[in-house]
């Protein structure tokens, strides 16, 4: 039996994509009442974790199980791997209890990436709903780090309530930039909320991007993405420039277990990020 020591984890992981790699939790951050981020220190030779914005990892809590979680950190900071998720299931709830110094298993990165290269020279509109902001954050880091390459950048973000807004500090920082448009709306609010109330799609008509020269990236619940696509189309964005991130029951992460099949694609392998035009016909098929 081969024992997987830290020094050769990388090598084994490449050949045995089903074997998880133990990573150390560097910091556990509570984002909202039910969402949290884990900052992991990659193990192995290089202490670096290379990924493209939009990719996900299979995270394994010892003894509890494994779930796909998108990477939410800065792709340029390879020594700091960040995931953000909501504590809803057993695994994510157990993950929420992890503290600095604990160990978490990582397999990945898997899946396709947001089209940051294709978007160069164009306006970029990012539409996020709920926890869907997490997989888009690496894109924003990338866009802002390479600000000169892009036209207008707009983030349209819908959350449930003001308390559910993710990454508040980061958003504040971005809000103060003049080269970054940000619109946030919540589904319901009480008290002192001075921002927008209403669904995220209502932000689309008024955000200042050029529909003919833009790339749109959407991440959120499927129904929100469906409505968003309609609204973007209404503004004249062509569907091959709209990208969506899909979600299904991913188990292996490498397209070999069949659980995340969506028609002719496996989401873990062919997605999770798709050009909308590629899956438009699958998008509204029931129980596919």
């Amino acid at each position, binding site marked *: *039996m*081969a*024992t*997987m020591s830290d020094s050769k984890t990388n090598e*084994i992981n490449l*050949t*045995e*994509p*089903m*074997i*998880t*790699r*133990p990573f*150390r939790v560097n910091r556990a951050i509570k984002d909202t009442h039910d969402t949290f981020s884990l900052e992991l220190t990659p193990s192995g030779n290089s202490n670096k974790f290379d990924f493209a914005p939009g990719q996900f990892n299979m995270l*394994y809590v*010892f*003894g*509890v*199980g*494994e779930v796909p979680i998108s990477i939410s950190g800065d792709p340029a900071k390879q020594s700091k791997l960040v995931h953000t998720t909501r504590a*809803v*299931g057993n695994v994510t709830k157990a993950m929420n209890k992890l503290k600095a*110094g*604990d*160990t978490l*298993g990582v397999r990945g990165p898997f899946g396709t990436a947001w089209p940051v290269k294709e978007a160069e020279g164009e306006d970029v509109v990012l539409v996020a709903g709920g926890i869907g902001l997490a997989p888009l954050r690496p894109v924003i880091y990338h866009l802002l780090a390479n600000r000169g390459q892009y036209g207008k950048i707009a983030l349209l973000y819908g959350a449930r309530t003001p308390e559910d807004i993710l990454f508040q500090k980061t958003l504040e920082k971005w809000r103060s930039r003049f080269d970054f448009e940000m619109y946030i709306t919540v589904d319901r609010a009480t008290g002192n909320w001075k921002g927008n109330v209403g669904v995220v799609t209502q932000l689309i008509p008024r955000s200042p991007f050029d529909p003919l020269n833009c790339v749109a990236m959407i991440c959120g619940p499927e129904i929100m993405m469906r409505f968003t696509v309609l609204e973007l189309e209404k503004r004249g964005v062509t569907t091959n420039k709209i990208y969506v991130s899909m*979600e*299904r*029951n991913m*188990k*292996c992460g*490498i*397209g*070999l*277990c*069949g*659980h995340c*099949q969506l*028609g*002719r*694609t*496996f989401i873990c*392998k062919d997605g999770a990020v798709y050009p909308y035009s590629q899956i438009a016909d699958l998008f509204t*098929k*029931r*129980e*596919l």
Partner: protein
Amino acid sequence: MPQETDKKISHYILKATELKSLLDILFQREYHVIAPSIRDKSIEYDPIASFDEITRGWIDHQKPGSYRLANDEQDRFFGYVVGFSSWKKYLYPADKKLFEAEMDTKNFRVIEDGTAAPKYAFLGVRSCDLKAIEILDKILTEGPYVDLDYKRARDNALIIVVNCTRAGENCFCYSMGTGPRAYSGFDLALTEISDGEKHYFLVDTGSRSGEELISELGLSSASEDEIKTAEKAIEQTIANMSKILNTDGLKEKIWANLDSLYWDEIAERCLNCGNCTLVCPTCFCADIEDTTDIAGEKANRTRKWDVCYTLNFTYVHGGSIRTSCKSRYRQWLTHKLSTWIDQFGMFGCVGCGRCITWCPVGIDIAEEAKQLIESS
């Protein structure tokens, strides 16, 4: 895995009485020989330890939802077509431990499962099943990620095909272009001829390993007549194959009927029990199961055959995507006959008929596909 020979296929004659010698060589070479034997009134591919365990003198009668063995008047070794199991159970086992992990206070350690697959010799692989193995090769070894366990088992496996000289009632390999004869991808291929007087095998070689076996056996080359006899037997098989699935435009026709009401009709009969997928030689879906001991100090990860008929299969926080039975049957059929082509460039169905025979209520993929298209 058979290595391509530089020569074209050669033909030899193996007398029925010499089949034992072939097996003896395999045993000598320390192959784990898997061959058809009878278990609980069905043909099953089980490990055998001696030639005597190979079954002889049986044919099978298969109907939707029914399988019965009967005596073979010609007393052949391979008079039946296929049993319910397929070779995937050796190449891609139903339960496979992936790793163990141990926790010490805060860190855990992963211990890979080091058990390697044995060196198999498969005797009696039918052409449809050979195609099924090729499909699994494509999926499990030619994508961006390789299932190394599969690949290792596959690389070491010796494949002896038996071409079909009898068509089962549920066979439709000819429609799917997967049989009844194999042309490549094997080490040896046998065509059994038993006409009352003579009983022998025409042996085709498909690889260097195959050639080596033949030369060790010292077989004589086949005559033109003998080659023709075998060809005729196979032609007869095609002529006798009554089940037909018209594959012209099948992929598109199935896809165009996603919202057909006919799916509801199937759903009334479908038990969503999963038998069709489990007996399918190409279905590869698997579940990844993580378990622990009571103390929470040891954990295991296992891969298990899964089927697209369960609610859990598409479970995403709080609910299943495919809640209705019809959507689950639809998923299976459309995958086999339509989306599989998009994914892997081939049908996911090889026409072996197992899913028809072993469906407890006889749902017939070929018939349902036909009805579905005609009902639109």
